[in-house]
């Protein structure tokens, strides 16, 4: 009995000796790099079923294996994909011509049958917390004219149909019929027309793909692509610095100066589609976060007064916010959607910093001594989100509004925000259409039709509602653009929300690679090119 530990120790030492030998040989084994691309992804991919969960990371991954009828370019403009052309036969009937040269990864040709199957499939997936059904529910009938011609009818004239269709991936009916989400994860049902073919899915770890030799588009330069899930910023950065991955998305803001100086790497940046703004409580008289100067509930809501909203907007020095607080990773915003997006009004200028004017407006509105306010926001969602709110609180304090800041983890914050627990909340919104964004953010809330689902402050303006409705019902792109612009501008002039800035997205990669940065922040392997 007493000897057992001694024996154990001896065995342990022997094992240690063997182990250190193994380790040494391991350390000397060099790394072999084939002609492949390794990408570090910032968010987990939960499923490879392209119709299961509508989150950006899943959609970005599905884009490698599947195509859509219509897609968007790096600037968010709609361009043909599997549909080579389309036209409206009437305000509610759309005809799509499919490309004739498209083959699935199993060699079978793409037909209108597959498209109809794919448009109907989202409604059959019941157990998803974020289904794709909102994108297909406007379509009331799907008519196959011939193998490569398809007519879709919408319930009402519906402008964003093409944009909605850019979210619905076309799967092979033969491969996917009767198959479950798990069949896609194992690859059995995962047959698409996209530039890459599925090889391996190790959940939470990596996804491997090889070039699809049947791909109808330009031949991808990479034989093999590996996506590594690296959700922690230091892990992603370390993987890049050590050469384990070739490119990362969501390059950590704090490390950009260092990466910029390092000759081994290149950064690609552009304004993203995400606009950050302060949402306001427009409806309640007793708003939860507003107090008098002694911290007592006020019973009166100053945010209902346009002059107060204007004062808040004027108090913010957006240039300082983007250059200092965001370290250059933002541009001052005057709009609801990013530059270049349908509905963006180039004539709007970011509100000029004018603390004097702001104080005057406050006095005019009957608040010469200000009031007490708490700002709410997330602390792990947007670039430097916590610091942004702290900065704004200082700006507000300068015009006499005693401002405090409270930030929360995202999963808690979003729930409470939509429950209208706050008076002012920080929100970032990425959208490819100003009318769709306005419907969600400033349209009078009506759950039955999906209006105002994020308009927790209950902003309501019949003129804005009317313009949004007209824009959404317009199928002519240029007319819709004008109407969406008018809707967004009307809401912004009324300061339905206080726009802050558009975020700038950053990719970091090896010096000899190039990536055209995308407005939607997606990382597409086939668009990464060696120099």
């Amino acid at each position, binding site marked *: *009995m*007493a*000897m057992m*530990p*001694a024996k154990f*120790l001896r065995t*342990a030492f022997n094992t*240690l000796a063997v182990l250190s030998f*193994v*380790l040494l040989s*391991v350390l000397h*084994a060099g790394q072999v790099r084939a002609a492949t691309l390794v990408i570090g992804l910032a968010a*987990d991919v*939960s*499923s490879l*079923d392209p119709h299961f*969960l*509508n*989150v950006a990371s899943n959609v970005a991954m599905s884009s490698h294996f599947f195509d859509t009828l219509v897609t968007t370019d790096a600037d968010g403009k709609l361009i043909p994909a599997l549909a080579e052309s389309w036209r409206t036969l009437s305000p509610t009937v759309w005809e799509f011509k499919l490309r004739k040269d498209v083959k699935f990864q199993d060699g079978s040709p793409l037909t209108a049958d597959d498209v109809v199957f794919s448009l109907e499939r989202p409604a059959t997936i*019941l*157990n*998803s*917390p*974020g*289904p*794709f*059904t*909102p*994108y297909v*529910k406007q379509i009331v009938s799907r008519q196959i004219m011939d193998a490569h011609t398809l007519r879709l009818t919408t319930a009402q004239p519906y402008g964003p149909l093409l944009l*909605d269709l850019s979210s619905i991936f076309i799967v092979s009916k033969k491969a996917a019929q009767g198959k479950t*989400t*798990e069949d896609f*994860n194992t690859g059995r049902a995962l047959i698409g027309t996209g530039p890459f073919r599925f090889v391996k899915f190790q*959940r*939470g*770890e990596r996804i491997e793909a090889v070039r699809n030799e049947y791909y109808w588009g330009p031949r991808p330069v990479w034989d093999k692509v590996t996506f590594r*899930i690296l*959700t*922690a910023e*230091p*892990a992603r950065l*370390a*993987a890049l*610095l*050590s*050469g*384990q991955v070739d490119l990362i998305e969501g390059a950590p803001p704090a490390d950009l100066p260092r990466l910029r100086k390092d000759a081994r790497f290149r950064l690609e940046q552009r304004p993203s589609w995400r606009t950050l703004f302060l949402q306001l409580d427009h409806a309640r008289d007793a708003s939860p976060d507003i107090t008098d100067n002694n911290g007592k509930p006020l019973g009166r809501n100053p945010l209902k007064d346009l002059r107060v909203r204007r004062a808040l907007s004027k108090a913010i020095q957006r240039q300082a916010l983007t250059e200092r607080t965001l370290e250059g990773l933002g541009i001052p915003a005057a709009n609801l959607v990013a530059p270049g997006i349908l509905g963006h009004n180039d004539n709007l200028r970011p509100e000029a910093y004018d603390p004097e004017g702001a104080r005057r407006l406050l006095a005019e509105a009957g608040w010469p001594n200000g009031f007490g306010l708490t700002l709410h926001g997330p602390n792990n969602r947007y670039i430097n989100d916590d610091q942004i709110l702290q900065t704004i609180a200082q700006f507000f304090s300068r015009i006499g509004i005693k401002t405090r800041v409270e930030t929360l*983890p*995202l*999963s*808690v914050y*979003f*729930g*409470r925000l939509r429950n209208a627990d706050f008076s002012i909340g920080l929100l970032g919104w990425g959208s490819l259409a100003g009318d769709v964004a306005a419907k969600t953010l400033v349209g009078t809330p009506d*759950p*039955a039709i*999906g209006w105002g*689902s*994020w308009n927790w402050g209950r902003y309501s303006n019949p003129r804005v509602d009317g313009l949004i409705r007209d824009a959404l019902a317009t199928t002519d792109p240029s007319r819709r653009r004008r109407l969406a612009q008018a809707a967004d501008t009307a809401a912004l002039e009324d300061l339905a929300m206080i726009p802050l800035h558009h975020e700038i997205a950053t990719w970091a990669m090896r010096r000899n690679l190039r990536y055209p940065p995308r407005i939607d922040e997606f990382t597409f392997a086939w668009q990464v090119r060696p120099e």
Partner: protein
Amino acid sequence: MTTFLLRRLGHGLFVLLAMALLVFIAVYAIGNPVDLLVDPQADAADRARAIHALGLDQSLPRQFVAYLGHALRGDLGNSFVYGTPALSLIMERLPATLELAGTALFVAILAGLPLGLWAGTRQGPIRQIIDGLSLLGFSLPTFWSGLLLILIFAVTLGWLPPGGRGETHVLYGISLSIFTPDGWRHLILPASTLALFNTALLVRLVTRGTADGLTQEYARYAKARGLPPGQVLTGHVLPNILIPVITVLGLEFGSTIAFAVVTETLFGWPGMGKLLIDAIGTLDRPVIVAYLLVTTTLFVTINLGVDLLYMILDPRVRLGNSHG
């Protein structure tokens, strides 16, 4: 013995039930994943459909009772976000976590035990240096020491990969990476990071125990019998300090698994800790509850194992009987 095991089992089941209930209430209070994940374009019908399909339209007690009913049949529910059974998601990743925690513990024992024994026989500066280093070892936050190791060995020297899991080898249906050189290359840094705390703890524990043990009568007697110092140490002192060491290691193995969350996130190690973090972010309740049930079960089992080990190591301990 049987009564002891049965009582332990009863305790374990009670802990599991209490844990499940607490987590259920907590996640319910935060909100539901549909509100977090549903597309803003979704109308009331889309939302209601999703909430109904996930069973979230039921009252909390109803949901809990239904959950227990399924759990008794071995079904811990489908993950909301992954759409696959929560238990299999966890089992898929359990080997990676156990492998990491097990290696970390192994490293801690290999380094901590000899170092502690040696330091215990020394007086003066050497002892103080080792003491100081071990204090540093368990004051350093895992996050920081992990980053430091990555910076030195992966980024600057380029000897080891900064993260991820290496090539795996399937053994009895479990994929493990400890059988491949590539697996070890990936395992060294995270396991060392995780081992740091336990090594430091072990060094301190063993140093004190040894120093103390050497002054005891049995050690002095052994020395007087003319036994070489090494044998006095491993043959007499070590067995006597093993009981507290095993108690601490047993407890620490549990918390190593739990603390692996930080290390796993930092090194992109695909273990269940990382799964938990993601699940909390998306309020994926089935995964959160299943994770906690699995870890609680592990804790209970480890503690049981520790108690049984006592019995082997110390013949005086008789479980289930009252003893003084």
